């Protein structure tokens, strides 16, 4: 198994604030699903920002696919992020004024690599989007509807399809199930696992809901990883 994502001696603080993250080591293997437990305010969104290359750590290194993010320019980081990772957020993930299929196709509009991969596998971006949506249980009749006419659960599956289109190596999910009830939560996760496997993507799943942890290959707690919070607790 090769390493997909590697964090090494990361330190990050917002301007004029105490250090929020101090992570000596963190790694995610390819094709692995990882549950990262973090209550709100623990810095998990900031951590995802670092992994996505939106924020830059003051010290240490973030390596995705062996590429040191800190050495890239801001524009190159943005391009690298969209080429190799897909995001699912808590809720309100979609652009309400676009159709479901257009929402799913969005990453291919900004990433030539993902557009190419989608075409290679499904013939066209729009076909790829339709396939993913159907795998995630959204019938073709819904594909041309405005995104905000769907239920929350359906919207989260659309967001998942969007994160997966063009087979990025990494899918990052930030509390995607918090708006769903317990039953649909697990169903959603099973679909997500299946599609991640099919796409060959690793899944980094951040949540405060410990009950989901057993479903994953590995589970970690951000509080244990992060020396900054441990120091604060002591």
């Amino acid at each position, binding site marked *: 198994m090769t390493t997909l994502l590697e964090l090494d001696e990361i330190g990050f603080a917002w301007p004029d604030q105490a250090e929020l993250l101090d992570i000596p080591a963190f790694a995610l293997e390819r094709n692995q699903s990882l549950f990262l437990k973090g209550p709100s305010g623990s810095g998990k969104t900031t951590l995802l920002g670092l992994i*996505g290359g939106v924020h830059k750590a003051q010290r240490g290194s973030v390596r995705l696919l062996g590429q040191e993010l800190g050495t890239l320019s801001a524009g190159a980081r943005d*391009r690298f992020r969209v080429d190799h990772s897909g995001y699912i957020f808590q809720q309100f993930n*979609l652009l309400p004024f676009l159709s479901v299929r257009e929402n799913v196709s969005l990453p291919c509009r*900004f990433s030539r690599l993902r557009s190419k991969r989608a075409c290679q596998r499904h013939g066209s971006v729009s076909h790829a989007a339709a396939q993913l949506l159907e795998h995630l249980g959204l019938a073709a009749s819904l594909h041309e509807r405005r995104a905000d006419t769907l239920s929350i659960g359906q919207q989260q599956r659309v967001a998942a399809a969007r994160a997966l289109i063009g087979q990025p190596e990494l899918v990052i999910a930030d509390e995607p199930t918090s708006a769903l009830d317990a039953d649909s939560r697990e169903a959603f996760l099973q679909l997500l696992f299946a599609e991640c496997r099919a796409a060959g993507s690793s899944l980094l799943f951040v949540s405060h809901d410990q009950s989901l942890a057993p479903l994953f290959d590995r589970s970690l707690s951000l509080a244990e990883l992060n020396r900054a919070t441990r120091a604060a607790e002591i």
Partner: protein
Amino acid sequence: MYLLRLALASLNNRRFTAVLTVFAIALSVCLLLAVERVRSETRASFASTISGTDLIVGARSGSVNLLLYSVFRIGNATNNIRWESFEHFANHPRTSWAIPISLGDSHRGYRVMGTSQAYFEHYRYGRKQALRLAEGRPFGEDIFEVVLGAEVAKALNYTLDDQLVLAHGVATVSLVRHDDKPFRVTGILQRTGTPVDRTLHISLAGMEALHIDWQHGMPARGAARIDAEQARQLDLQPKQITAFLLGLDSRIATFTLQREINQHAGEPLLAVLPGVALQELWSLMGTAEKALFVVSLFVVFTGLIGMLTAILTSLAERRREMAILRSVGARPWHIAGLLVAEAFCLALAGVLFGLLLLYLAIAVAQSPMQSHYGLYLPLAWPSTYEWSLLGGILLAGLLMGAVPAWRAYRQSLADGLSIRS
């Protein structure tokens, strides 16, 4: 290109504000173009108040003054000129026609002009249009006949064969009236949109008859009075007139003849070229139209500020939209480009809709404008100048778009992908 589609879709999602914004811009664009068009047409119609006349000749004064009283019926002549002078130049070998003008009387605020048949034949206005009678015939059979301008007839409600009494002088109150010699309406002219509409035309003989028994600027009394019937029997050859218009056989002769008139030995005369004098007069009146233009420019500016406000207000509620776009790979400059595209779309729609409004307004107002103000607004494509105004508005819209673009750029850098809240 995809950014433009996104911008349009996002605008469509906020279509109520978008439509209002577009409407505000469209109204201001329409106003600006309407002002511009009326302005250029007014100038053109002002310049065509008189046309086809090569020289205007009067007693020596200023050229604007001469133009004002002889063509616009404003102000008074400083002096009259002798009939001999008129005859001299009317019979000049280069002259093809001459129209005598004799002013000084009025009727209920409208000026009376004594002239000859040549006036109806040779006077031209606008695009070399001749005067035409709406009803009746020119004066001529009797000396106490009057031809009314269209506005005089309409405002005072005169019809053919009505009798009217002229007053001496041009003030509006306490005038001595020529009530012993009433005039009969024989003709009413078609509307021209020029001062001709506000003029009563009588023959020079009629003008002479009115004043035949006057001495020292006062009407005669008692036995010295000459009534209309007696006047008809007298020699009514005028001794003086106020001014005259000349048409020459060739344009080249204009300057030669102008010099000749200005150096006339008989009495001090002044000959002016109508075009030159009109230019001079317009330069005096140009300030008002410039002010109007500036005001409408500010209205356009206000419309664009409205757009800026609408976009800036929407930014706060669209942070999530921006963050989603960032998470699917849009770079901050994409976000900025999206807002510039949005501003451009709004401005473009405003300009196009404004043009549409303008053409609708012109189509509706064209004929009333022409008949009431003599202003012909052509339903023509925008001129080069108007295109450049429209281009300027679009450019201003783009520049305005840079403000929210810059804010969104900063905002999306700071927000990153976090779309909580």
